[in-house]
């Protein structure tokens, strides 16, 4: 059985919020209920509840992949710090990922890098989203 993989880097951040995106709602709900690796049907199509970082971490666990993933995660972290929206746990995750890599625990390292990268990407999303939406929270 052949799987078609369609990567949609859909950073859906139109002002008006998540409510305007029923797919995002469905995805979040399924993710919250079942965690990663769960498939669900939406509008006749089948989807997985995985984040892109988790897909990357599912690649073969070896030094090359783990090194690349850690580098990508660090790069993402630098980007989110540049806009001042870093999260506190990311640094520790990156450090642990580095240690795991040195210790030859490639899968652990890749999982940690994936988590760190997810944090940083979410921080960036948060930054983008806030540019449009912060004003909505101001009491009139």
């Amino acid at each position: 059985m052949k799987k078609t993989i369609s990567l949609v880097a859909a950073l859906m951040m139109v002002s008006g919020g998540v409510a305007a995106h029923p797919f995002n709602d469905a995805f979040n709900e399924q993710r919250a209920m079942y965690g990663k690796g769960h498939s669900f049907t939406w509008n006749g199509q089948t989807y997985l509840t995985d984040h892109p970082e988790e897909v990357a971490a599912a690649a073969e666990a070896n030094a090359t992949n783990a090194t690349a993933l850690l580098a990508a995660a660090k790069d993402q972290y630098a980007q989110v710090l540049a806009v001042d929206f870093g999260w506190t746990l990311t640094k520790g995750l990156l450090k642990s990922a580095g240690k795991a890599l040195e210790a030859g625990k490639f899968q652990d390292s890749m999982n940690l890098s994936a988590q760190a990268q997810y944090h940083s990407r979410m921080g960036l999303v948060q930054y983008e989203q806030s540019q449009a939406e912060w004003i909505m929270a101001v009491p009139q």
Partner: protein
Amino acid sequence: MKIIKVLLAGVSLAFLASTSQAATSGKTLATVDPEADRLALQSHFQRRFPQVALSDYVNGIYALDAPSREQWQDIEDFPPYEFDIEEGEILFNKTFANGKSYADCFTNGGIGVRQNFPRWDDSQGKIVTLELAINQCREANGEKALGWEKGKIAQISAYMAYTSRDNVFDLKIPNNGAKAAYLDGKQTFYTRRGQLNMSCANCHVAGAYIKIRADLPGPALGHVTHFPVFRSKWGNLGTLQRRYGGCQKNVRGVPQKTQGDKLRNLEFFQTYMSNGLVANGPGARK
């Protein structure tokens, strides 16, 4: 069976603005109206807590919560910051190596001026907080700058605040530079940060007097009037910017730079919101 893996980003951030009362203008330099913002915040709290007098907001959460107020009053009866005021007075009056002192850097010799800070400084083109002014004074006189968050700077700030008690905050926004700083601070205040995805406003506007775990966040109105504070949690005296860092870490965000543009502008915005209230620092907090 065909499985399409759709990798989706940017979906986990909840969107929780109270749309019925939310502003839509005031986002740009052209439309922002600080005075209207201030009155809107006041009326927000007065609608929520009609029994609380406006002037009482300088007491923070203790204006709203009677049981904590009782303990706080017991503490304020003989507050732990009194040693710091005394120490701050000594530090304040100490002359620098060049013979000058802090009094030479401030109007009125630095006595009773807390309510004028933070202020827009045209020559520097930025907001100057009291702590920044203290360190600028030191550096202008050939002294080393002090650490921003606690210790000597907090004690000097506490003494200066103490000499300004009951003086009314009346921050001015003299030009577009100041207005831009205000707007920037306003945006920071209402912007969600960190893994917990919370803004200052989440806890201190909508969330004021609503339990967050075991804590009751204080109202944004009058939020900054009593700084610096001796927090029981810290066991010593700390500046407002120290507290900002703590708050930002609490929502699991990497804190913004202490006394950087962002946090100075935030302090300016927050203090402007408390215009009309009195300076009552230093304070004791839990």
